[in-house]
């Protein structure tokens, strides 16, 4: 028997705080279409990047056609015939199709580009992928579907043995999808293997010979596509135990603290929901479903195109996070370092910055009062810091997150707190504490909205759950009716 095109054996990959791949065995045969599915954070991207030479593996081995390889640079993987077409297309829109296909490898003689040869070779590659455009056309003039085909032509020009397609159809129209799937069939017929990574389970089952399911960094199944159906795939993808340390208590809820009516921005459409004081509402959804975008839309960081938002019954003016804060709506953002902390400022300054209106008189900060309030919260949230004068950048991620929660808790008028990815990049112990704090805050009458890609986090924390899909709310669940399978089914694009 010939050796598989790609073989991973016992592969581990760890990042700070995350064990992304655990003892993964995985292989792709020449000329097969191999589907790869899994939830957010299951390890799909990590696996792709290891094959592409963008990550090095911590343990285990990678073989290409039976030879052990140690990629240290993506270029080496490309030279070995492994090419990835990423979700975000990596074309230069101001250059021609031909230049993009042969980017960095333009046919030349002594540094002079041989344009005739370039266009001729590009033409023949474009024919192979079924794209009928002049190779001199600027890529910027092409639609997304055509650009995807240019990427594939580029992969073919590198004599690819394996083309990895990461969510190839997420931005394509139905006709374009048909074309692409046809092309994948064609590639298989020519002996090129395709690793097809997608959330669209129907497509995966239709096109693949075999399908591998990753869950929590573990390869939980690799089966013939003909032996699988969507329901079976979903149950393989979830089946995770609920997050530890989320103790849910029944809470008294009050009146509507947040009312949203057909809110739209560039990224979210016609969002309507409400949150009562004392309630935790969760938003679940896949990568790119619009969770962070919805949070930004609510506080007015993204331009509002339509709809209304009310805080405690009062209309929130559009496009002003300042007005949102004054009405009592706050956001703990997803990306702590880029959007949350003021890294060079002290813990105290970071905590009090949004509450200075009430901690000052005539523009002068009341230092004594500020210190008392900050100390009180730092104690209550158990922020581990030598004192409140050290720069916040010196704290661990979990403690930084607690300081960001304090920032909003110091705002006297706060009614609704949005928390985007409350525990991203935080270790397990600190996670449990964040969950405890969020529970206590709801208990004390705050309305909390949690946006999270971790399904068990949403399930564990929330009283009610909304699922986002492609910028719209696709389902609503009560605590009792929500199951991982149900959430995932609603999150997957139809």
């Amino acid at each position, binding site marked *: 028997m010939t050796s598989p095109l790609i073989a991973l054996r016992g592969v581990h990959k760890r990042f700070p705080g995350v064990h992304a791949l655990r003892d993964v065995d995985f292989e792709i045969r020449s000329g097969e279409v191999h589907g790869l599915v899994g939830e957010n954070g299951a390890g799909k991207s990590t696996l792709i990047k290891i094959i592409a030479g963008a990550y090095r593996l911590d343990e285990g081995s990678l073989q290409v056609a039976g030879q052990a390889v140690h990629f240290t640079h993506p270029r080496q993987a490309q030279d070995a015939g492994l090419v990835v077409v990423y979700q975000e297309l990596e074309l230069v829109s101001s250059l021609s199709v031909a230049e993009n296909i042969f980017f960095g490898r333009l046919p030349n003689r002594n540094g002079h580009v041989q344009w005739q040869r370039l266009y001729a070779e590009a033409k023949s590659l474009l024919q192979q992928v079924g794209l009928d455009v002049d190779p001199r056309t600027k890529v910027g003039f092409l639609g997304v579907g055509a650009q995807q085909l240019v990427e594939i032509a580029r992969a073919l020009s590198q004599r690819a043995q394996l083309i990895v397609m990461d969510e190839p159809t997420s931005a394509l129209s139905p006709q374009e999808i048909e074309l692409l799937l046809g092309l994948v069939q064609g590639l298989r017929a020519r002996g090129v293997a395709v690793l097809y990574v997608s959330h669209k389970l129907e497509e995966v089952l239709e096109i693949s010979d075999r399908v591998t399911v990753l869950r929590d960094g573990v390869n939980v199944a690799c089966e013939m596509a003909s032996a699988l159906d969507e329901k079976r795939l979903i149950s393989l993808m979830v089946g995770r135990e609920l997050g530890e340390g989320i103790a849910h208590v029944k809470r008294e809820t009050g009146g509507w603290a947040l009312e949203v009516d057909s809110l739209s921005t560039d990224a979210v459409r016609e969002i309507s929901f409400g949150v009562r004081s004392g309630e935790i509402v969760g938003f679940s959804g896949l990568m790119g479903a619009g969770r962070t975008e919805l949070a930004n839309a609510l506080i007015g960081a993204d331009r509002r195109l339509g709809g209304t938002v009310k805080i405690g019954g009062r209309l929130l003016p559009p496009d002003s996070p300042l007005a949102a804060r004054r009405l009592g709506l706050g956001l703990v953002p997803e990306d702590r370092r880029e959007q949350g902390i003021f890294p060079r400022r002290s813990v105290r300054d970071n905590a009090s*910055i949004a509450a200075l209106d009430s901690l000052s008189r005539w523009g002068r*900060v009341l230092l004594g009062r500020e210190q008392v309030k900050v100390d009180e919260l730092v104690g209550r949230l158990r922020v581990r810091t030598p004192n409140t004068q050290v720069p916040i950048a010196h704290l661990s991620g979990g403690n930084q997150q607690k300081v960001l929660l304090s920032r909003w808790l110091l705002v006297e008028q706060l009614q609704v707190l949005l928390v985007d990815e409350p525990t991203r990049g935080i270790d397990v112990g600190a996670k449990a504490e964040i969950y405890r704090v969020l529970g206590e805050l709801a208990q004390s009458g705050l309305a909390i909205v949690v946006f999270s890609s971790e399904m068990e986090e949403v399930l564990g924390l929330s009283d009610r759950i909304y699922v986002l899909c492609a910028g719209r709310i696709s389902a609503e669940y009560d605590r009792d009716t929500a199951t991982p399978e149900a959430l995932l089914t609603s999150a997957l694009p139809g």
Partner: protein
Amino acid sequence: MKQWATRLIQNEQAGLLLALVALCVILSLLSPVFFTAINIKNVLRDAALVAIAGIGMVMVILLGEIDLSVGSTQAVAGIIAVVVLNAYDSVMLALGAALVAGAFVGLINGLLITRAHINSLIATLGMMAILRGSAMVSTGAVSLQGTVDSFVDVGTGHWGPLPIPVVIAAVLLGLFLYVLHYTTFGRYIYAIGGNPQAARLSGLPVEGTRIAVFVLAGALAALSAFILASRLNSGQPNAGLGFELQVIAAVILGGISLTGGVGTLAGALIGILMLTVLSNGLVLLNVSSFYHDIARGFVIILAVYLDTRRKNSLVRRMVSGAR
């Protein structure tokens, strides 16, 4: 004691202060004139002009922005001051007119940056050219003489032993030290400059603070213009040529980082004194004034280089601290 010593060495401000002292010592040895009361007063008087405009520049750069229009503002505000002075025979009215003009320029800068979303480098570069051109056109490129005798007192007079501009600068430095460290406005400046995105998402008054800082910077530049005009008893269309570079170089040398949110007014003051002493020393040593520009150019590049190095070492410390 040992800890105190290492902290002193790590503290860039202390290092700069030591360099300033060293420079003074060297100049006293090279020139008998340097360490005399008259010369020291001259140095302080020159430094006062830079410091007054420098306070505004410190706030602008702390925000992560830049203001290239302060030099031309000096010309325009000086001319307006002298025109009003001659027309109404009132020094106070002249001062008021200059300040309003400077604040107005700052307001336009602020609106261009916050509302029209024009990069501050470009907005104030355009403003710099417009104002300089206006100064030239309105005066026919000749200086405008003041006709009120008491006008020159502001720039050349004394309060007790101290030149009036030095007193004004000292009072303003004290005031803005307080503003930057003990007011909500100061906290917002550091926060916005340190992480504009976080400031916006936290609901801070980002636009209002930006506009206010540019207005203050314009008014402070106009105040320095008023003092300069008084000293020369004239409004000159080519006043403040290259002044913006002098101010920017001084505050960056004093540790105000171009990335925003980092540095102190006290540090900036040391940078200002350092550059003024350097210029003064070059004059005393009979170095042609053309060389001053060359020296200043070198200092700007050196200051930014030091700033970049400080930033890189901080990133390294933060990364290694996080592991």
